[in-house]
């Protein structure tokens, strides 16, 4: 069983996605259990693999039994096992959470299709993460992108179509860049298997000087930067998060950009080798550091003035993706730990906050920050979740966000990049401003303001919210995520 888990993790949600629209014609009630069952399986498989790869036991899988450089290989190591768990857990929680939300936001006829698209999107993201073949990565990237466009465009307002369309245009440009990069790389190395390409680079460092290799790296970096909405290439993202159905916002915000960021990690470590940043193309590293720092400060700065909660959270995500890229660019054990644990930490905090935004949409029809007034009085559970997740975004000690910042800052000090510390602190300060603005409304609304949030949302929505919020505390106090990240780094070959 274990030997086939890598492929089953992908195939189960994929086939469930294909079956859902067909079975829905027979019996509509099967859609939700099937979706939850498929994602639950992926979840189980991902966690199982994460535990299995600890201590440096990667799982290799050759599709159809074809030997690796010829056929497509899947490979699970400490790094992508963490990302797989993140995607599968968020996918499962979204599926559990979304019942009432999509009943409210989507016409009945569209709901089975929505489940199918969500499953396929999950397949795409899981596939990007698990594959060890660079062209296969592109294929899954396309699956994930196309399904994401659909998930966004299903929003009930007309702006959703526009947001989905503009993401389609920008995302396709990004995907084209990535394909061009892969093409250039293939021309030079004649291989698509990551391990094979990496071996060629290690055997012959002169390759880094070749202009087509440089071009390949530049294309890949820019393409992925668009996909991960790295400042200033984030234009598509706020609109998409704002106008998508709440369930899509939740799933996409908590996973999609981070999967692209993971792809950047993978390309640096397993395709080109870290030398590409150090001696191969150092300007790329400087540029990405600058972009990450700009994102970290400007994301929350723009978020402060937003009146729409989903848009506010979207800009906040622009900042948070900067942390993950920063961690990679520091190329230091501590910095990388900060970057890698931030995959989980941000997924938990942002997931919880988008759950709350979705609850707000369910109750008031929109996600205006002002409508949060009095939430603490009417919906104390949800309000507590906002508080914990918000504190984690700021980086309050004993929440998950603090650990990310701690490792990034000490990593920056260890590599003598002192300027990063004020950048991180400024970001914490700016985040504190908008989080405080939210909490002020939630807990300290004037008594004469009648809360627009009528009552607590149903448990099907509340429980996933609370699970994610609790994760913000657990990862902040019990440092499991750090243990996993250390293992991942050890497997990637950065000496602790």
């Amino acid at each position, binding site marked *: 069983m274990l030997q086939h888990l890598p492929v089953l993790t992908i195939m189960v949600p994929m086939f469930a996605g294909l079956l859902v629209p067909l079975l829905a014609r027979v019996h509509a009630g099967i859609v939700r259990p099937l979706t939850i069952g498929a994602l639950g399986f992926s979840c189980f498989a991902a966690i199982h693999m994460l535990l299995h790869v600890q201590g440096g036991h990667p799982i290799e899988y050759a599709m159809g039994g074809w030997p690796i450089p010829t056929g497509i290989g899947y490979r699970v190591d400490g790094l992508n096992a963490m990302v797989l768990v993140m995607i599968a857990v968020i996918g499962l929680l979204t599926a559990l959470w979304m019942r009432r939300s999509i009943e409210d936001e989507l016409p009945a006829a569209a709901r089975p299709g929505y489940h199918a698209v969500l499953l396929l999107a999950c397949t795409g993201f899981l596939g990007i993460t698990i594959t060890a073949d660079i062209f296969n990565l592109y294929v899954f990237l396309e699956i994930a992108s196309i399904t994401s466009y659909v998930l966004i465009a299903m929003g009930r307002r007309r702006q959703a179509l526009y947001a989905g369309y503009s993401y389609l245009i920008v995302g396709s440009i990004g995907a084209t860049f990535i394909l061009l990069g892969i093409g250039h790389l293939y021309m030079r190395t004649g291989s698509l298997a990551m391990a094979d390409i990496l071996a060629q680079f290690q055997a012959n460092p002169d390759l880094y000087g070749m202009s087509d290799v440089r071009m390949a790296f530049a294309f890949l970096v820019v393409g992925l930067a668009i996909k991960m909405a790295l400042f200033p290439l984030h234009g598509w993202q706020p609109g998409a998060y704002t106008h998508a159905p709440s369930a899509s916002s939740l799933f996409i915000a908590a996973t999609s950009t981070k999967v692209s960021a993971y792809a950047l990690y993978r390309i640096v470590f397993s395709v080109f080798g870290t030398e590409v940043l150090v001696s191969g193309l150092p300007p790329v590293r400087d540029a990405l550091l600058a972009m990450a720092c700009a994102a970290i400060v400007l994301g929350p700065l723009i978020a402060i003035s937003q009146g729409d909660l989903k848009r506010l959270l979207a800009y906040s995500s622009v900042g948070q993706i900067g942390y993950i890229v920063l961690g990679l660019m520091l190329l230091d054990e501590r910095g990388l730990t900060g970057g890698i644990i931030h995959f989980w930490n941000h997924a938990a905090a942002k997931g919880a906050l988008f759950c709350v935004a979705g609850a707000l949409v369910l109750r008031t029809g929109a996600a205006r920050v002002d409508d949060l007034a009095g939430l603490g009085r009417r919906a104390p559970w949800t309000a507590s979740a906002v508080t914990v997740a918000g504190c984690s975004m700021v980086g*309050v*000690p*004993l929440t998950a966000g603090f*650990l990310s910042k*701690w*490792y990034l*800052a*000490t990593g920056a*000090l*260890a590599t003598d990049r002192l300027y990063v*510390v*004020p950048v991180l*602190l400024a970001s*914490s*300060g700016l985040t*504190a401003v908008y989080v*405080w603005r939210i909490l002020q409304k939630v*807990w*300290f609304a*004037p*008594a004469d303001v009648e809360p627009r949030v009528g009552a607590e949302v149903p448990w099907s929505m509340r429980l996933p919210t609370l699970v994610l919020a609790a994760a913000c505390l657990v990862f*902040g*106090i*019990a*440092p499991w995520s*750090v243990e996993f990240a250390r293992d991942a780094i050890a497997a990637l070959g950065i000496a602790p």
Partner: protein
Amino acid sequence: MILAIDLITHGPLLSIGICLVGLLGIVAARKAPNVREGISLTTAIANFVIVLLLHARFRAGADIGGTLVEIVPGVSLAFRVDALGILFALVASGLWIVNTLYSIGYMRAHHEPRQTRFYSCFAIAIAACMGAAFSSNLFSMFAFYELLTICTYPLVIHAETPEARAGAKRYVTYLLGASICFLLPALFLIWSAGGSNPTLDFVSGGLLAGSEASHMTLGAAFLLAVAGLAKCGVMPFHSWLPAAMVAPTPVSALLHAVAVVKMGVFGVCRIVFYVFGVDLLAELGVADVLVVAACFTIVVASLVALVQDNLKRRLAYSTISQLSYILLGAALLAPAAGLAGVAHIGFHAVSKITLFFAAGAIYVALHKTKVSELDGVGRRMPITMTAFAIGSLSMIGLPPAAAAVSKWYLVEGAIDAGRFAVLVVIVISALLNAAYFLPIVWRAFFNPVPEGEESGRHEAPWPCVAALSITALLTVGLFFWPDIIVDLAAQVAGYGGGAD
């Protein structure tokens, strides 16, 4: 025996835990005010008993503490009972009892709304104080420091009027802003200064003693840490304290004369004595910056206090000035001065809480908030104003009041350190303190009651009077028997060879 065993491993946790249990009780009994206040008072007493037991065990030489959870190597949530911590815990937990008594009288006489939130946040605040007091490393202290800021915000915004909102906003902006911008990078620097074996654990004599980090880095870390501990009220990071005076008087009394501000100076003492160590700071020379800032604050805050007509604001500026005595004591790096600084944490606390209690009692009984309205109040509220007079004497540093002891050691320390300019500051400040406190006492006792006002005796409700009498008696009592505090302070500062 079982209790004794538990106290050794879990004593500090027990102290934090009892506050949180009290919190649950308070919330559960929200519909029954008498039960709720009873639980509050019981929790306060139980907590004080635990701290007293810990104190006794500590004096007997027990090493009490342990690590709860390690988050990053060298960064953990861990507790240890030591001299400075037990001193702060004794002060905060002891005065919490009196303050709870006072709150019951004050909040009821005033028909304040949201009393459950009030008592709940108070319980969390004390839990945070206990946590910080017993923290055995800088990270734990930082975590509880932030918790204290957050859980006192609802207390400051209590009235929810526009002024309260504005004051609370300033409060949280200053305290959170400073700790994020300055204290957090100081933590990064101090942790990274450990090289391959980084740690944040407090060590008597300084965890950084013998560090190989550059003087530039260490000096920057010290200044950042002190600036980040804005709760200590040193100028220019002081203006949150007058703004916080919009809170109900019990909050101003316990939090903004004892718990919150003392957490700030307590933090600075930790930084001076346990993180850097006196020797390293003498070598770095950066403590002089703190000496200058503290002297400046002492004089300027006193000058500002002179012109405040609102009684609570005058007390707030007096607090700012007095806190800088503690900073000055620590920054002079002489054992006697260090003792003075640390002991002043306790002495100032009992004196200043008395003054705030008196101010609140006047407000409750006569609805007066301004100094200029206090003519003849001494005849109407003799007990309250006598207590106020004792508190004033203590602030000036005259016997027979507690703070005279710490002032005396401070003078000794300044002479030891050869800082005669500091002596001048101390003298000027004592004169200024007299200039803004004695007229109040004079006015209350010797000016006639204004015409058209009643002149009969009219004290505040008995819990208020009882509370302020207790603290006034404590103020006098600690002058005659200061050993409980001075002994602990001597251990912290290494006075008379008593370093722990």
